């Protein structure tokens, strides 16, 4: 009897939210050849962001498939409004040795963001051990992964695949699911295509996948670019890592802390702003940012923690982004 129960349980776990969502990544037909090589089919465009979200040092491969014959309109300010039928795929992986980016790698999950007639849907597909397939797992999961970092040091990560609801914890604006990354500011840079290097917005315009692409376009700096201005690096960093929740329409709006780059320099950006419901997340500190004093700034404290009840972002990482914390520390020190 107990075994029967188990079998039925297992059966239920593989039950999917409606028949229209494939249970396997390969069912989407986004890739050609071996799935793990992640080579896009024609009509599937790889893309990259200038300043990406930190996800426990995972590397990411990103792809967009527009519905055939459709294009997306350029806009300078926010994430592009992709048409219904668009699919965005993001594969998270770890190179076994970060010093050899083209060496062997462990694929962790591929998230599909699918623009359905009822809105965007996020679906996590978890890669099997054999790296031959990724399977839909609405409840997410965790797995331990080990790799060598840039310094050749062994690093262990308890990698967490978010569940479907947690996806929306970040991908939400005014209650509706939305992509976060692909905006003009984030994509205004060259990447390597099959045909060679080209600026992404130029490419999208030239191939008629994007309409009305102007020549003058905003651009984030890369936050890892030490040659860029500190303020611009911080704007880019906080925008992609925090502003998806911390904006007036996002899930963290109740905090009144808005880290969208447009709020830079205001009280809402945290400068001498008291926390609202930070609880022990305040770390005993009075303000989100105290100019010149990173050790007295809650922003720095919460970025520099991996306690689930303290850390920010509260999802999507389990370890500290040392380089990000260093950047914020340097910036807060520079303020006066």
């Amino acid at each position, binding site marked *: 009897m107990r075994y029967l129960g188990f079998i039925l*349980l297992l059966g239920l776990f593989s039950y999917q939210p409606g028949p229209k969502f494939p249970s396997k990544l390969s069912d989407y037909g986004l890739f050609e050849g071996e799935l793990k090589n992640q080579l896009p089919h024609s009509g599937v465009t790889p893309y990259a962001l200038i300043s990406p979200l930190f996800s426990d040092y995972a590397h990411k491969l990103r792809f967009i498939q527009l519905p055939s014959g459709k294009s997306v309109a350029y806009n300078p300010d926010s994430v592009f409004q992709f048409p219904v039928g668009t699919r965005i795929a993001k594969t998270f992986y770890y190179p076994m040795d970060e010093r050899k980016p083209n060496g062997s790698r462990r694929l962790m999950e591929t998230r599909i963001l699918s623009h359905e007639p009822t809105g965007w849907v996020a679906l996590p597909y978890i890669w099997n051990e054999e790296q031959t397939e990724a399977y839909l797992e609405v409840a*997410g999961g965790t797995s331990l992964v080990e790799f060598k970092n840039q310094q050749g040091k062994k690093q262990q990560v308890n990698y967490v695949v978010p*569940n*479907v609801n947690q996806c929306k914890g970040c991908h939400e604006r005014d209650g509706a699911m939305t992509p976060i990354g692909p905006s003009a500011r984030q994509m205004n840079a060259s990447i390597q295509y099959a045909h060679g290097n080209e600026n992404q917005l130029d490419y999208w315009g030239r191939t008629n996948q994007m309409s009305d692409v102007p020549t003058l376009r905003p651009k984030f700096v890369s936050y890892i670019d030490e040659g860029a201005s500190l303020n611009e690096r911080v704007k880019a960093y906080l925008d992609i890592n925090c502003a998806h929740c911390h904006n007036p329409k996002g899930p963290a709006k*109740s905090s009144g802390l808005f880290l969208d780059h447009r709020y830079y320099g205001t009280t809402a950006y945290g400068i001498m702003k*008291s926390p609202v419901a930070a*609880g*022990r997340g305040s*770390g005993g500190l009075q*303000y989100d940012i105290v100019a010149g004093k990173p050790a007295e700034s809650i922003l720095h404290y919460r970025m520099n923690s991996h306690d689930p009840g303290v850390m920010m972002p509260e999802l999507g990482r389990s370890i500290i982004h040392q380089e990000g914390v260093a950047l914020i520390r340097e910036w807060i020190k520079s303020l006066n």
Partner: protein
Amino acid sequence: MKYLLIFLLFIGLSPVMGQAQFEKALQTQLILASDGDVIEVEEGNFQISGSLSLEGKKKITIRGKGMDKTVLSFKNQKTGAEGIKITNCENIILEDLTVQDSKGDLIKSMHVKDIIFRRIKAEWTGGPKPQNGSYALYPVLCTNILIDSCIAIGASDAGIYVGQSKHIEVKNCTAYQNVAGIEIENSLYADVHHNHAYGNTGGILVFDLPDLIQKKGGFVKVHDNLIEDNNLSNFAPKGNIVGKVPRGTGMLILATSHVDIFDNKILNHRTVGVGIISYFMAEIAIKDKEYDPYPTAISVYKNTFERRLGRVPLEGRFAQIYRFKLRFGRDVPQIVYDGVLDSTRCGSDGQYLPQHRICVHQNINQSVANMDAEHDFKNVRRNPKELDCVQEYVKSNQF
């Protein structure tokens, strides 16, 4: 729905099912639930390792087998800040279960229209500690909230906390060993009655704070509550406004307008029975131009106060004010008002126009003081005549 019931049957019958499977099964149910489903959670003690979330659903009931019978413990939580998180939903009922020891808040609901918490115990089991999460029950940016017969214990901020919400009823609840027992913050139309708040730092708080999305709270009725012995040392992590509440506070109204406090028993508070203060008392600079820092249109009447003679405990900023500025000695007044007035609401006599007044009347063992905080407490006055008034009460039909 049929499948869910079969599924639940097997949870009960399947002793081999481990904690991890239970958690995954429950989370999967929450994700796959169809509008109208009842999700029943078995009796037992279950260790949960990550936040459970319900998102974008309508008409869902999550029902345990009873308080202390169905226990979800987040003691070994590894991911997520909350125990249970309910977002962007409508018509949600959560009832008959206990949740314990999450890293952050125990149950948070955000952007939910019509939510009922009923017979929920939400607690940190290791006693009052700053390491405990902020809020036990935490609806924020919600509309139509009923919190009925719940118990909240050990929150390092507020046990029952309603923030930036509208149309709220909190009744028959018990809150103890929290910094604040029950707190209504930047919320409109709240009816808080027949609760028991004891052994907290502060019993019931009604606050309006700056820099928030829902700017203005108010139209709050607090009545028929038993608020007693809230003399616990304040254990809130610093940086939180509640950390400024002095131990020994029965009720504190901070910068909220249209608040009626009546028919309560407010007993044995070493610092203050009912404090009515402006945001200036928090000594934090105000940068929010739309923010109204003044409490106005408040009635405190027909309550019963009791307090033994004795000095206020010497702990925190307010205690210093009491000791060195107010100098009440051992006969500390039950009701204090900071006396900081908004000149735009004053008449020619320099006092508030009738519709903005703070009125205190017909309390048992009533004793009142105006702190005159505006003039550095120079003219502290007991039983001041400007507070001896009656004004229109908050209307019930607004709720």
